[in-house]
């Protein structure tokens, strides 16, 4: 490493086994059986204050979030990796080694959990409800009944969507080792007219069964205006943390 005037830090993307790390064209910090996939980054960009400011910059966030994802993506397609959350940074490579020692059991367990498996994302979308032909109410009573009827239909439709989401998640789970139904993304985030009713992530050893189940779900729920979308395979982001402890 050449001497640099610029102050730097060590950015950790994720952790792999040392034996696998040697096959990667990536910078790694090894400690025993484990290796962290790292980059050396300028503190001017990734220091605490700079990072906080940058997180508010949409373009910066997109570029760097995608870069984080792409590094992990490439690795995860070739072998087991424990993805770290964006922005895990150490001052020195020795600090990274210290982390690998301190977290050895947890990281080894996580690697075993995801070995030979990938994460598949499945989203279910509900189209807009059918428009009821409106007829001008003849009386006040008719108006109230119409209003109540409309409210009842909305309630029934939303209960049905919830049941569809539940059934879909259970059927997808039956093709997966593990699965989680995450918070559906709001329209403001998706930019779509349809409402997201399921935002699932599934850990699978084989992608074909879940692909087929998605086809069956699509056929079964098409008449209700529900469509399904598969994303991935992803690095197993959703399946490495034991309950989100610090």
């Amino acid at each position, binding site marked *: 490493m050449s001497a640099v005037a610029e102050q730097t*830090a060590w950015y*950790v993307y994720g952790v792999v086994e040392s034996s*696998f790390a040697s096959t990667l064209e990536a910078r790694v910090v090894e400690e025993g059986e484990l290796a962290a996939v790292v980059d050396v980054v300028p503190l001017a960009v990734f*220091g*605490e204050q700079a*990072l*906080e400011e940058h*997180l*508010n910059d*949409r373009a910066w*966030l*997109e570029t760097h*979030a*995608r870069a*984080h*994802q792409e590094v992990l993506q490439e690795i995860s*397609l*070739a*072998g*087991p990796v*424990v*993805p*770290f*959350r*964006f*922005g*895990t*940074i*150490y*001052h020195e490579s020795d600090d990274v080694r210290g*982390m690998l020692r301190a*977290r050895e059991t*947890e*990281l080894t367990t*996580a690697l075993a959990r995801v*070995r*030979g498996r*990938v994460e598949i*994302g499945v989203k279910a979308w509900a189209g807009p409800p059918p428009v009821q032909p409106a007829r001008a109410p003849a009386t006040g009573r008719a108006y109230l009944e119409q209003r109540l009827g409309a409210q009842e239909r909305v309630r029934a439709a939303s209960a049905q969507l919830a049941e569809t989401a539940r059934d879909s998640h259970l059927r997808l789970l039956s093709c997966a080792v593990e699965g989680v139904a*995450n*918070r559906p*993304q*709001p329209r*403001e*985030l*998706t930019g779509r007219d349809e409402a997201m009713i399921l935002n699932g992530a599934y850990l699978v*050893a*084989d*992608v*074909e069964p879940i*692909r087929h189940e998605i086809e069956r779900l699509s056929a079964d729920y098409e008449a209700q205006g529900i469509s399904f979308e598969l*994303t991935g*395979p*992803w690095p197993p*982001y*959703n399946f*490495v*943390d034991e309950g*989100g402890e*610090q």
Partner: protein
Amino acid sequence: MTHPDLRTSGAFSQRSSQPAQLADVLERVLDKGIVIAGDIQINLLDIELLTIRLRLLVASADKAREMGIDWWQGDPFLSGGRDGNGALEQRLKRLEAAAGIEGDGDE
């Protein structure tokens, strides 16, 4: 190695022509993945808070203003699906204060 080599399986050849949605990427890299405290902390990396900021970032500034700052109130997950507005508003005010987000929707 037992890991399926998906680069050659062709099962997901679609992904090369279809880049991942930004929302899907952000949701994963900011909100999931293992959380291990590094030396340099992002102070505000509270998941709830980040989710809110993330939504503000992803929605265009104009759209966010147009919708007001309260557009996530319809989200049963963020509102807990049971809160009266009082509790939710207090929570949002706390989060906004911590995030330095002005209540009027300006960045």
